[in-house]
């Protein structure tokens, strides 16, 4: 079923007030920690290695300048001056005090934000392409559907206690930048015989048992989206395992029971569910679609853009790497990487957030996106504004020309913050980035996805890295396993473990050997690391990682 709440901000404020009362009852002893824990988790409050952590939802990574300014305010006044973009397009604050969180939630509610369903065994933030509504290769804007899914799944009574957490991704572009195959449900907007619909994937996920999803419906008419998604999740809710949390994700349900069985049950449930949808979802979608009408694009020449490219090599280099093709002539999407030298991947200071909010208003039609690779995207920038935008970004340390390159590393917080981690991720990311900058090979290596997780839960998406790094605890020492050949985009693939793990100090030398071998092995500069790996197989790369074994 689907009902649209008349005034959603009232609901968010109500939930914030409810949590304030729950915190008060925890502090006065009325609630034990066992009673309180599920309540705080339902509001995105975790207890981490050094402090509480508050995860705030940024639905499908889309955020307004005013919302960004509120995040800056929270970072400045309730944290240590920064926040952390997550790989699910959300933000985490690492140092809030429990007693302050009700105030933080009130402030978030004032700009329509919240932390609902950023934890727990519920439907989590729906993620999408950071270039949605802007990309040149996009067939249809996925955001109205993402908003429909968000609205429908928020506080959905039936799905508050699923066997395990549940993640949905949606894309409307030819190139999948939403990692559809790595989600519990993945949706690709497609067209068939003039009708719009979805290719529906199910059962993908990373974590300790990484699996790529499978197509459960090759064409779902778009008007059937909610009843079909509801049927999948209702089927999983009944048949998903609850005896073992490591086998409770839908990927295991589908793998154990077989896609055919799961699909048959889903289709049967779908026929029943569809009868309960009477058009409220269609009406809501029409309303949401109007929220995502394109901005008033300027039809103007890209004055000064090419001249500045010719005159300023640093600007040229930045435009070579950090722009993404826009569907409107004269426009580009700009990738602002949070991977400068010495930076923590995905960490944004309050000042940087405020600057981005201002720049989005000045140059970007007031639109901002958080990308799954822990960067920020200004989706709509006219090329004539790029020189000025670049200068403003550079002044704040936000104009590093490295999008998609070696130092644009995804890294989870790891054992610097996370209580689940088995090793640190951040220093490894920093050391790799520093090393390849120092030896000057980043440009020569070209496009490369390095992904680092500090435990098998794989928040750093290491399985999807061309080079993946997994931090483990081996007999009380940090140790790092390397996987090769993963890909989240063009040809989805789970990386394969290369061999024995490396102590922390040997990770950079190992990656250095690996990438120097790649430079020797590649046919030419247009053959990316992942292309060379696919052409040659793992053997020459393993030989570079483990020279002693190769020569033994």
């Amino acid at each position, binding site marked *: 079923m689907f009902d649209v709440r008349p005034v959603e901000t009232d609901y968010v404020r109500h939930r914030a007030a409810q949590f304030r009362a729950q915190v008060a009852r925890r502090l006065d002893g009325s609630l034990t920690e066992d009673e309180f824990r599920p309540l705080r988790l339902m509001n995105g409050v975790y207890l981490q*290695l050094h402090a509480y952590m508050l995860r705030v939802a940024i639905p499908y990574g889309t955020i307004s300048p005013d919302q960004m300014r509120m995040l800056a305010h929270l970072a400045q006044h309730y944290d240590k001056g920064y926040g952390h973009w997550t790989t699910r397009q959300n933000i985490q604050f690492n140092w809030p005090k429990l*007693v302050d969180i009700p105030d933080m939630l009130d402030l978030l509610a004032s700009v329509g934000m919240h932390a609902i369903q950023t934890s727990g065994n519920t439907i989590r933030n729906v993620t999408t392409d950071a270039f949605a509504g802007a990309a040149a290769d996009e067939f249809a804007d996925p955001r109205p559907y993402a908003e429909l899914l968000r609205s429908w799944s928020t506080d959905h009574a039936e799905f508050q206690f699923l066997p395990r957490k549940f993640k949905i991704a949606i894309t409307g572009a030819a190139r999948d930048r939403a990692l559809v195959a790595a989600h519990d449900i993945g949706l690709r907007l497609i067209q068939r015989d003039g009708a719009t619909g979805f290719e529906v994937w199910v059962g993908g996920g990373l974590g300790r048992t990484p699996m790529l999803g499978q197509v459960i419906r090759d064409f779902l008419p778009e008007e059937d989206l909610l009843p079909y998604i509801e049927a999948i999740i209702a089927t999983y809710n009944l048949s998903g395992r609850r005896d073992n949390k490591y086998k409770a994700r839908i990927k295991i349900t589908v793998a154990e029971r077989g896609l055919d069985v799961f699909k048959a049950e889903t289709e049967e449930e779908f026929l029943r569910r569809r009868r309960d949808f009477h058009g409220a979802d269609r009406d809501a979608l029409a309303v949401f679609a109007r929220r995502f009408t394109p901005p008033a694009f300027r039809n103007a020449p890209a004055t000064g853009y090419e001249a500045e490219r010719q005159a300023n090599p640093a600007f040229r280099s930045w435009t070579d790497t950090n722009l993404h093709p826009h569907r409107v002539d004269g426009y580009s999407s700009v990738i602002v990487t949070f991977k400068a030298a010495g930076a923590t991947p995905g960490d944004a200071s309050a000042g940087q957030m405020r600057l981005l909010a201002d720049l989005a208003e000045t140059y970007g039609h007031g639109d901002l996106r958080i990308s799954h690779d822990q960067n920020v995207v200004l989706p709509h920038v006219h090329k004539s504004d790029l020189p000025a935008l670049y200068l403003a970004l550079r002044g704040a340390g936000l104009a590093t020309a490295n999008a998609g390159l070696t130092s644009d590393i995804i890294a989870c917080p790891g054992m610097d*913050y996370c209580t689940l981690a088995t090793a640190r991720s951040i220093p490894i990311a920093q050391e790799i980035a520093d090393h390849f900058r120092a030896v000057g090979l980043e440009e020569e290596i070209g496009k490369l996805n390095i992904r680092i997780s500090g435990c098998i839960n794989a928040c750093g998406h290491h399985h999807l890295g061309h080079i993946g790094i997994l931090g483990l605890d081996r007999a009380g020492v940090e140790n790092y396993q390397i996987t090769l050949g993963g890909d989240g985009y063009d040809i989805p693939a789970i990386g394969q473990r290369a061999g024995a793990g490396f102590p922390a100090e040997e990770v950079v030398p190992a990656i250095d050997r690996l990438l120097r071998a790649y430079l020797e092995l590649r046919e030419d500069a247009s053959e990316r690391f992942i292309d060379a790996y696919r052409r040659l197989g793992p053997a020459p790369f393993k030989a570079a990682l483990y020279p002693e074994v190769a020569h033994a």
Partner: protein
Amino acid sequence: MSKAFTPTAARPGVITANDLREGHNLWMCDAGWTPDPAQATLFEDEAIAELALLKAIGQSNLVVGAYLVEARRGPNGPEPTHFREAFRQTGPSNYFHGIQAQKAEAANV
């Protein structure tokens, strides 16, 4: 994980938790709870440690997530034996935040 640890004379331990209201790390000491891990009580007897852990869990109006974890006797007090606890006693490695910053601040006062 370290939460199932039981101390002995050969492998002593400390009790650690987080401050309920603010979240920072704390260690059980003779006077209650301290943010300085070097002041922690070192338990060498299983029964005494288990009793102290029950007491810690009972202080849920003050702390959250109390557990026993291995430590060794050092010249200035208990020291961590595992890197996870060493990080908890220091702070993150990417910023000078957490206990390392608190200590520096205290030293400058």
